[in-house]
């Protein structure tokens, strides 16, 4: 019976299915030929059309056997609801996911990624993500609405509600860290997903729309109530549990002042606020760890019980054994900043961070026209100027997502780049390092295009190599064909928090305005 209903729906929705497949094909061609699209201003139209058709097909297929109203023909016929549900699911997989799967395979292949069974889990996960994040919500709303217009109006209503919620004075809440927001997202999902599952099953089993609408409405209304939870201590402690045992690194304040003394920087913003910056260095016990910073809080204690604590602040950046320095800045009332200078204060830093465990370093030969980055993807050297943008170094592609963390390194002694006019060969024992991070929240990136493009670019040599021609500039670090590349990849092993007693903050160094908070 499932196949019987499916065949009927395939006939019923042949135009929508045909249109979706056609737009998939156009989008595939467009994506695999980024410079071949003549009508540049219409590039964005195709993905919009693709997803519009996705929703139209999903909604119309479900509403073909409408679950709302008392004038429907089909409920008076001997349908078994689990069979109807299965037939609709099969239709949506067949008409939405299968064309998308083929599109993704073609895109991977045309990007130069060799097709193998190793890609199958990623492709499958991507289909599951699209089924879960797009089809499922569209399906649920289609079960509680009677027509496509009603469905669109419901979406508009939800969007207006979201806009209304965004206008609430959320800035009055304390700042939130990414991990706390993840906890909130999980809580929201824990409310919305069961509500959606209930509405879907209830509607198919009972066709009594008001309980389903009430449950969905209540779930949607409850979502904004979860937002304040992100900034609570509980959410933070769930997202970043305290390190048990030794943290992966030790932190200390950098002795950056004259004569090796400790010094913090103070800049004033007007006459009410000051910005304090404390330079910190990390010492790693394990050089195979990278710490991805997510947030911090500084507590200062001084003479005579003087104490001040900053709120939790966001901080994106990383600490590695190769890149151990970082500055922590925070705003402070002007008067308190004056007191800090006299208080002989000590700092305690609470840090929320993720730890990436890196694998072994691999030396990659880049002499071939294209070369593989094991566990990551494929890179190829440009044969000529491609389109309007001239690409420096190899263009690389990876399937689905980049590793959680990726560190690329080149050595000056091995560099094969042609010398600039008048410049001597690079001295040995300098190196250039680049970091790249993939996401950690979903198994594969939620993107219909499974090809992740990236480049192997480097900031500069460490230690710097000044130019002979112009002493004001440093020589550029670049990967050229034949330069050996040292690659390390790693994955997030967990998020955690730890507190570090940094000792005395040292003496004040006044700078004009807001001191640069960037890493030293």
């Amino acid at each position, binding site marked *: *019976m499932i196949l019987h209903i499916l065949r009927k729906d395939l006939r019923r929705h042949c135009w929508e299915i045909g249109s979706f497949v056609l737009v998939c094909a156009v989008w595939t061609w467009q994506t695999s030929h980024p410079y071949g699209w003549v009508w540049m201003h219409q590039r964005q139209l195709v993905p919009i059309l693709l997803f519009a058709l996705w929703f139209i097909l999903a909604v119309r297929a479900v509403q073909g056997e409408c679950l709302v109203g*008392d004038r429907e*023909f089909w409920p008076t016929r*001997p349908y078994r*609801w689990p069979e109807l549900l299965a037939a609709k699911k099969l239709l949506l997989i067949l008409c939405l996911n299968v064309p998308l799967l083929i599109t993704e395979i073609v895109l991977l292949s045309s990007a130069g990624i060799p097709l193998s069974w190793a890609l199958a889990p990623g492709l499958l996960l991507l289909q599951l993500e699209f089924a879960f994040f797009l089809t499922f919500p569209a399906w649920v709303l289609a079960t509680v609405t009677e027509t496509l217009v009603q469905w669109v109006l419901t979406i508009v209503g939800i969007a207006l509600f979201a806009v209304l919620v965004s206008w609430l004075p959320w800035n009055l809440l304390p700042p939130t860290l990414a991990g706390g927001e993840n906890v909130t997202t999980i809580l929201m999902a824990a409310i919305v997903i069961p509500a959606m599952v209930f509405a879907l099953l209830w509607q198919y089993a009972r066709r009594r729309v008001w309980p389903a609408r009430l449950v969905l409405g209540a779930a949607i209304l409850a979502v904004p109530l979860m937002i304040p939870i992100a900034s609570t201590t509980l959410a933070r402690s769930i997202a970043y549990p305290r390190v048990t045992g030794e943290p992966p690194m030790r932190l200390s304040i950098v002795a950056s002042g004259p004569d090796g003394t400790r010094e913090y920087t103070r800049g004033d913003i007007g006459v009410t606020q000051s910005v304090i910056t404390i330079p910190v260095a990390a010492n790693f016990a394990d050089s195979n760890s990278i710490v991805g910073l997510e947030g911090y809080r500084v507590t200062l204690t001084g003479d005579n019980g003087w104490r001040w604590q900053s709120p939790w602040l966001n901080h994106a950046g990383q600490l590695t054994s190769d890149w151990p320095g970082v500055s922590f800045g925070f705003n402070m009332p002007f008067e308190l900043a004056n007191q800090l200078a006299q208080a002989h204060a000590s700092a305690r830093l609470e840090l929320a961070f993720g730890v990436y465990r890196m694998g072994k370093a691999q030396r990659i030969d880049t002499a071939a026209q294209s070369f593989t980055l094991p566990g990551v993807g494929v890179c190829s050297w440009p044969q000529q100027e491609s389109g309007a943008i001239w690409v420096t170094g190899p263009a690389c592609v990876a399937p689905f997502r980049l590793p959680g963390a990726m560190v690329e390194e080149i050595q000056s002694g091995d560099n094969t780049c042609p010398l600039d006019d008048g410049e001597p060969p690079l001295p040995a024992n300098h190196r250039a390092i680049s970091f790249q991070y993939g996401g950690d929240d979903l198994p594969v990136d939620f993107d219909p295009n499974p090809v992740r493009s990236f480049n192997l670019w480097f900031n500069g040599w460490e230690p710097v190599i000044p130019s002979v021609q112009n002493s004001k500039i440093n020589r550029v670090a670049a990967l050229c064909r034949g330069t050996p590349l040292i690659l390390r990849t790693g994955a997030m092993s967990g998020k955690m928090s730890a507190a570090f007693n940094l000792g005395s903050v040292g003496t004040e160094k006044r700078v004009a305005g807001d001191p640069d908070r960037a890493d030293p």
Partner: protein
Amino acid sequence: MHAIETFALTKRFRRVAAVRELNLEVGEGSVYALMGPNGAGKTTLIKLLMNLISPTAGRAMMLGSNASQLQGKGLETIGYVSENQKLPDWMTVESFLSYWRPFYPKWDRALEQRLVKRFNLPRKQKLKHLSRGMRMKAALTSALAFHPRLIVLDEPLSGLDPLVRDDLMEGLAELAGETTVLLSSHDLAEIDSFASHVGYMDEGRLLLSEPMTSVRERFRKIEIAGDAPLESPATVPAEWLQFTINTSGANADGARWIETGYDAVRSLARAREVFGAVELRASAMTLREVFLALARAGRPADANGGPQWK
């Protein structure tokens, strides 16, 4: 055994009670015609029976199963056709019928073909291109071809021309005897010859429910003629509807009414109690006349019940 049974079935739409504590019994094998003016609650009752809406109170049984759980396999033996159903208009008659075939284990291809032929249905045409009458015929074919034990028809004849009505009634007659039919209709003339039982609903209440033969016997047009001019009685028995009396003019010796509980001896005795020595002439009524009389008799003013013409 009753094919349909309801127990104090009630449906309210906010403050409006569309069906009020309705108790209905439709015997197996009967053809039950549910009559009543617009807004009487017939369609709501049928939707409750078909589990298209849920009751506010009470319950209904369809072929021994709770109507609130009627779905899936329970519908393999029940056919339903309504004038205001949303049919899958994009289907041709052929695809419409062939789609339903696998759903019914007892689908009878020969009966389907007979019905298609009788109704002169164009198999290749899409339902949306058919007239209303032809769409009803297609729906009825799909509801009859599986030899339903029970068929529920909500105003299937409304707005159709006499030729189409004849076709539909003949189609229904094809299954007479093996199928219980519950039919709501305004078409009193057609029902008259077709129904075995009849019910009358008004304001959500079932005011009458009995065999057709009983209705025909019970309802009579009465005319009396006296030797002397008649006097208007102070009260009229409750069984008399549309009572009129001529107390002046040339026909000042006559009165007429509709007797709702006719019995030759008792009706005469009652008339004589009211008017004295009179001659009573009783004539049979068509169903149309009966229900027009009931409808014109007015709706009960008493919200707790009103007249029950049983």
